[in-house]
């Protein structure tokens, strides 16, 4: 494997190019007469390289990455399930790709049908009454959802008093960051040893200032909030709303629905639960579902249907579907275009594939796999929670000898050909290793992973240096992060 790959700038030469302009009959040059000369760009520092160099460069770079096809990718909270090839294929249909967000509704009835039907399916799956498909990712969905809460209280004349969003200390970092972005103060509630909401702490924090609570269920330690009914009742009696962070929906897909548990708002991570790829960090999509009482606050646009007696799916609905921009009470617009459409096409294809027969198998197998790994490893690594887990299990490196940390285990796993689990999250469990195999993992691969983990634990006692110096089998080894921040080099400089 080529380890150090030069930037394309290093290969640049003015005679090289990877592009040729197409033929045109418009040959007049209007620049001189129509653009003031000092507005014309003088210098542009981009490389000039041939197409073959571009192809090789990125192909070689891709080989330095680890993807889902390389092997098990058990990143807890990330749901790194297999990304079906079909999804990528259908999203690239010209009839989808080559349509513009500002086309008139009667020219995009296929797209509108797809979105309308997807909204309907997401309602069914989550038990909510309506969805907006606009949010670009989970955190964008959180921001949208909390703005809905804000608008709801504004409408009730309580915006000035309801200023607090409660968030368990086990929550993902985007939760508090989104609540602040949407104008709320955040108060943390304590978590029990299993990461569940501490009911005493919750009761203590409840007051007429509380606008809502953000919960992840199953929570970030992979446990179902067994008191959810009581929590929902407490919040609703207090006049507050419940927000569901859907990052962990995979565990209960087809088995239970947040809408039935009393949640008023949910966001979904399409790029987790609904099999669309993570792309090395995005793009995703974070649709937000609401109950009836919040529908009028949804962001624009809303997809409507002129005649709601029309049965879906029935594709002869041309000119019956439309996008609607202005609703008096809407929180407004949250992005430039209406949605991350192609991501949603992939999710739609995936849901069609699951269908009513298979959707529950997702949750079942995801949970079975996580419990299997937990059962096989709990005598080797400290398992802070004895009860069965949901779709992910949290183990801890805190009881290992020789100063071995979760990071050391993670790095050593790379030498055995695995992507490490999420580490140091959730924050409430020291030296956390959070393992989420997902339903698409094979037992054979999980067994290899389990064997590797056991070997590593043995090595940690017998030869800890192996872990401390790991990885050695990867394109690069441990990085100097201090230097990265101190001698900041975040763009190639012209020499």
């Amino acid at each position: 494997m080529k380890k150090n790959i030069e930037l394309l700038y290093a290969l640049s030469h003015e005679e090289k190019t990877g592009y040729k302009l197409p033929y045109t009959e418009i040959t007049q040059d209007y620049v001189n007469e129509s653009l003031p000369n000092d507005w014309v760009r003088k210098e542009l520092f981009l490389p000039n390289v041939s197409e073959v160099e571009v192809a090789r460069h990125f192909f070689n770079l891709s080989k330095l990455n680890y993807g889902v096809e390389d092997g098990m990718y058990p990143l807890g909270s990330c749901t790194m399930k297999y990304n079906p090839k079909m999804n990528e294929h259908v999203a690239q249909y010209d009839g989808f790709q080559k349509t513009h967000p500002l086309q008139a509704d009667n020219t995009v009835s296929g797209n509108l049908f797809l979105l309308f039907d997807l909204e309907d399916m997401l309602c069914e799956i989550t038990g909510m009454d309506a969805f907006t498909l606009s949010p670009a990712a989970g955190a964008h969905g959180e921001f949208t959802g909390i703005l809905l809460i804000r608008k709801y209280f504004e409408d009730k004349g309580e915006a000035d008093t309801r200023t607090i969003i409660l968030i368990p200390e086990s929550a993902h970092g985007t939760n508090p960051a989104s609540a602040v972005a949407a104008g709320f103060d955040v108060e943390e509630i304590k978590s029990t040893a299993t990461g569940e909401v501490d009911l005493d702490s919750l009761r203590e924090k409840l007051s007429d200032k509380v606008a809502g609570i953000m919960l992840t269920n199953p929570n970030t330690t992979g446990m179902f909030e067994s008191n959810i009914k009581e929590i929902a009742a407490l919040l609703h009696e207090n006049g507050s709303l419940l927000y569901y962070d859907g990052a962990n929906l995979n565990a209960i897909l087809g088995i239970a629905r947040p809408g039935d548990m009393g949640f008023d708002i949910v966001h979904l991570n399409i790029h987790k639960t609904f099999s669309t790829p993570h792309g090395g960090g995005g793009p995703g999509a974070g649709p937000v579902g609401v109950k009836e009482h919040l529908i009028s606050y949804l962001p624009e646009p809303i997809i409507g249907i002129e005649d709601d007696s029309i049965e879906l799916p029935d594709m002869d609905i041309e000119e019956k579907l439309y996008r609607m921009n202005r609703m008096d009470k809407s929180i407004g617009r949250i992005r430039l275009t209406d949605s991350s459409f192609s991501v949603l096409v992939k999710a739609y294809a995936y849901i069609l594939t699951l269908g009513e027969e298979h959707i529950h198998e997702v949750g079942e197998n995801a949970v079975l796999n996580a419990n299997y790994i937990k059962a096989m490893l709990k005598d080797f690594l400290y398992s802070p929670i004895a009860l069965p887990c949901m779709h992910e299990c949290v183990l801890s490196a805190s009881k290992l000898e020789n100063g071995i940390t979760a990071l050391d285990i993670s790095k050593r796993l790379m030498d055995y050909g695995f992507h490490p689990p999420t580490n140091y999250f959730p924050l409430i469990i020291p030296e956390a290793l959070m393992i989420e195999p997902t339903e698409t993992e094979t037992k054979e691969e999980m067994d290899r992973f389990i064997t590797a983990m056991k070997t590593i634990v043995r090595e940690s006692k017998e030869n800890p240096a192996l872990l401390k110096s790991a990885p050695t089998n990867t394109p690069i080894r441990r990085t100097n992060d201090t230097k990265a921040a101190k001698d900041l080099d975040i763009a190639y400089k012209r020499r």
Partner: protein
Amino acid sequence: MRFIPTTSSDKKNMMDSIGIENVEELFRSIPSEYLLQEPPGIGEAMSEQDVTQFLSELSKQNVSFDDASCFIGEIAWYHYVPSIVQSVTSMPSFYTAYTPYQPELSQGTLEAIYEFQSYMVHLTKMDASNASMYDGASAAAEAMIMVLAANRKKTALVSSLLHPYLKKVLYTYALPRNINLVEVPSDDGSINHEALQKLVSDDIGCCIVQSPNTFGIIEDLAEISSILKERKIASIAVVLESFSLGLLQPPGEYDFDVVCGEAQSFGMYPQFGGPGLGYMCVAEKYIRKMPGRIIGKTVDVDNQPCYVMTLRAREQDIRRNKATSNICTNNALCALQATVFLSTVGQKGLRDLAKRNFNHAHYAFQELNDVEGITIPYKKPFFNEFLVQFNKPLDYVRDELLQRDMLISKNNFADYFSYLKNSVILSFTEMNSKAEIDLLRDALKEVLK
């Protein structure tokens, strides 16, 4: 189920290891009243063949750019995407990977994003770029929030000639932060400099301008920047049609503090809206205040050069409610698309393409200018789109053009600028041939007669 590899004997083995008789036991923590008795109503499971056929039919219900000529821009543009872009983004270890938290297994993504940041820095002539934002509007909103937080101010000036959707998003983001937005009036299709001069005061924390603006017109960034600099007001330039950076002096040339916007034009089809690619580039002093991920170069323990995510202490997973932004997942694969696109067309190709867009749009301007029934309200330097006003109702004209296989925007600018009755933005790129433009001219002659 073809995405689930577990056999019944695997299942049995695993249940034995766990010590359970059936999988339901694992769901005991869920109160039984919440367990679904019926599956969600999502229809029968479909085979791949059936799904692809169904979606193919559905996609054909749309009028795509293969069926009709597209003259729509404003927030997304139809440009050619070289085959290599698709080829690279289809490499599984690029598109299936997670955010590069583990640099030892992510050098491919990390180096590609470092190249993306480098290209954006040089395109905009700024000091630094982040690894991407969701889109041009969230990038602008986050830029506003970042700059106001740094300057401890609560009021932002916004050009009245931001695209209406962009402006709406700014209002959405500003409200919960108690940020006041004050609109800078326009004059004859661009920002009114005297009005701007009058609005600048010590309370103002920043000013956001878009260029080319919502009418496609290029703003006088030198003049605007100097007005703002004089009063030490932070300046944010938004560029939505990133192709314009190939021909026009970039905002960084005029000392803007932030340049942000949309880079969908670099290798992405409009895709009915997305995903596109938000970007944010800043001057030195804002680097440590930027939202989102930043990739930096460093070395590993063997002193090998390598790349990592850096300046992480700004981010939500570490700072939680004190983070500079809530963004986590960004648009990394779109940034890769842009990087492959820019690498392929190179310096020369981007210049040529930008000029080609300019020339095609100016040819169209010249041809449409003489058509009876068309008024072109503003005649100032523009890039690849301009506003036209029809003497007939826009809906009628749009339908007539559709009959002739031509697509124009659904946005009637009269909805945003009441004095611009029946007006629409027409956009022209390298994809619109002379023949197409001539047909549009002839069609409009006929329709507006």
